[in-house]
């Protein structure tokens, strides 16, 4: 047995795909060590046995999308010493925040046979919109390394390392040839926060922006390069920024700017998917 009482760990789910929780479960080699160091008090994806709060560390997955969830995130905050928002949904609203740019009442009418049963907020929002959040782990999902670093830092009572710089720096650290410079593939890496280990450029794809905006994202300059040098139509940039971090302020602002400028053209939902944009080359 460890000398001191183990801190109580809770993992919470809101509107999300469970991918972040899976990242935690995916720490296969370390799971025993985690269970040894933490008292896993609430983690439904791992066990239906739960222990009442208060909790020393709460990991929150998912965005806040219903009135019930607003109450629940407040309750969790009250019962948690340290609260960490984990993943793109909890830190930026997730892919479901696409609704923030549309008419939710209309969605309900179209999608559900009996829309009167649906109680939902107008917008999908990050935890930080409702309660103070101690740390935000970006990513869709965050990397296993980032989750382990967070847990380790918590145990040692230090701040976790959550770098805020561009993906490009890690591209170069890994010796990956830039897909934008060498192949003309549009890449969000220069405006996106690192954390994935430059996964997409490693496989010759442009960065999708899973980790959200980096610390000082200059989307204006990047978009100018996309349109003027790579020959990409401005409206085709919209789906690049409208993904997992669509509602992160720096990305939302770009997309809103683009759609406002093309308000009389086709709506964003009908635009070709980002993967098609990725294939655009400047060879012509």
């Amino acid at each position, binding site marked *: 047995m460890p000398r001191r009482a183990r801190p109580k760990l809770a993992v919470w789910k809101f509107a999300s795909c469970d991918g972040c929780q899976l990242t935690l479960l995916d720490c296969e080699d370390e799971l025993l060590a985690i269970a040894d160091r933490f008292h896993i008090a609430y983690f439904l994806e791992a066990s239906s046995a739960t222990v009442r709060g208060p909790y020393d560390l709460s990991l929150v997955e998912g965005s806040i999308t219903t009135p019930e969830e607003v109450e629940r995130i407040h309750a969790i905050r009250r019962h948690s010493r340290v609260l960490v928002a984990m993943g793109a949904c909890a830190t930026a609203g997730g892919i479901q925040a696409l609704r923030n740019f549309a008419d939710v009442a209309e969605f309900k009418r179209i999608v559900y046979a009996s829309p009167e049963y649906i109680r939902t907020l107008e917008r999908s929002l990050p935890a930080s919109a409702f309660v103070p959040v101690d740390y935000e782990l970006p990513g869709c999902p965050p990397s296993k390394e980032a989750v382990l670093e967070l847990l380790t830092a918590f145990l040692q009572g230090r701040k976790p390392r959550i770098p*805020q710089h561009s993906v490009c720096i890690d591209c170069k650290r890994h010796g990956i040839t830039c897909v934008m*410079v*060498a192949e003309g593939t549009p890449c969000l890496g*220069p*405006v996106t926060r690192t954390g994935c280990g430059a996964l997409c450029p490693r496989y010759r794809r442009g960065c999708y922006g899973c980790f959200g905006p980096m*610390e000082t994202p200059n989307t204006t300059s*990047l978009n100018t390069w996309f349109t003027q*040098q790579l020959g990409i139509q401005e409206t085709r940039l919209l789906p690049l920024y409208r993904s997992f971090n669509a509602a992160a302020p720096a990305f939302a602002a770009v997309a809103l700017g683009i759609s406002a400028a093309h308000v009389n053209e086709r709506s964003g939902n009908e635009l070709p998917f980002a993967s098609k944009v990725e294939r655009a080359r400047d060879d012509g």
Partner: protein
Amino acid sequence: MARGSVVIESAHLRTLILTLQREGYQVIGPTVRDGSIVYAELSSDGDLPVGWTDEQEAGHYRLRRRDDQAVFGYAVGPHSWKRFLLPSPFVLWRARRTADGVLEETPPADAPRYAFLGVRSCDLHAIRVLDRIVLAGTAVDPIYAHRREQAFIVTVQCANFAPRTCFCVSMGTGPRATAGYDLALTELLEPGAHRFVVEIGSERGANLLAHVPHRPARAADLRAAEQAIARTATQMGRRLDTNGLKAALYANLEHPRWNDVAERCLTCGNCTMVCPTCFCFSVEDRTDLSGNVTERVRQFDVCFTTAFTYTAGTSHRHSARARYRQWVLHKLATWVDQFGTFGCVGCGRCITWCPVGIDITEEAAVLSSRRGAGAEDT
């Protein structure tokens, strides 16, 4: 200085590589990977980019086929030799707490003995710049020193391509390498006589050549080699006027162009990562969940992040302007005060690999053009 020259037939490049390997060197050289020519371990001459060249412009790089079998007919790519001389990330040490509380330390792994094949003149100068920083003075970096001492350097004189983003002529760093190598190859592509003129730069180089079939260089060989290099010198795609550059930049700290470039700069850090002389690093202590294992890791850091100047609760270079200005001023001005040389060798990598094509020669020309601009710029 060269200790004479010989000629080897192109087919014997293979023998040269084999000999280096037989002597226990890990041979690192150019190879095509993922759309560019990078430096990686070569298993044989078959890994070399034969018949390839590159097309480079600001923010633009494409591999292209040549219509000949040139082995070294291209400029430098995204990698530089600092990848191997200053490996990053690098575990400085690792310690484990045993059951009885004793710390057991694992020292860093042994470095391979590298042979660098294809070191261009600019990069030889870059290595010399690094020497001044991490070998001279009181704080010698043992990781670099060890690798540097062991490294066998085969230079390739730049010939048979038109460099687009290079400006080594302006920086006085090329295209002809005159010292600092064990062997220096100049590729001659005459039809039916594809060969290399090899200048011998060290005793080590001479000894190695004993295992590679060669003949003495004739006057015609040497003349052809000089002409090929001289042609490259006339084809520089970029230039930078270094005359009075430092003083002019110091006088223009408030030049409006800093704002202009800041609007374009992504603060992505690609320029410093590809620069063969940018040497800044950060050191992190990483621990495991048990708290019993810790390692200290060093990796390249970049002056374009806010974390770079994070001190006493805040970053000190908030704006892109402040960060770009720091970088250019260091490369072209403060580096001179600090180390007695420019921090730029004119390799052009930062121009090519900037995702939005920011060109240090273009920026520096404007930024040094209007002295004392600060007065009208407040």
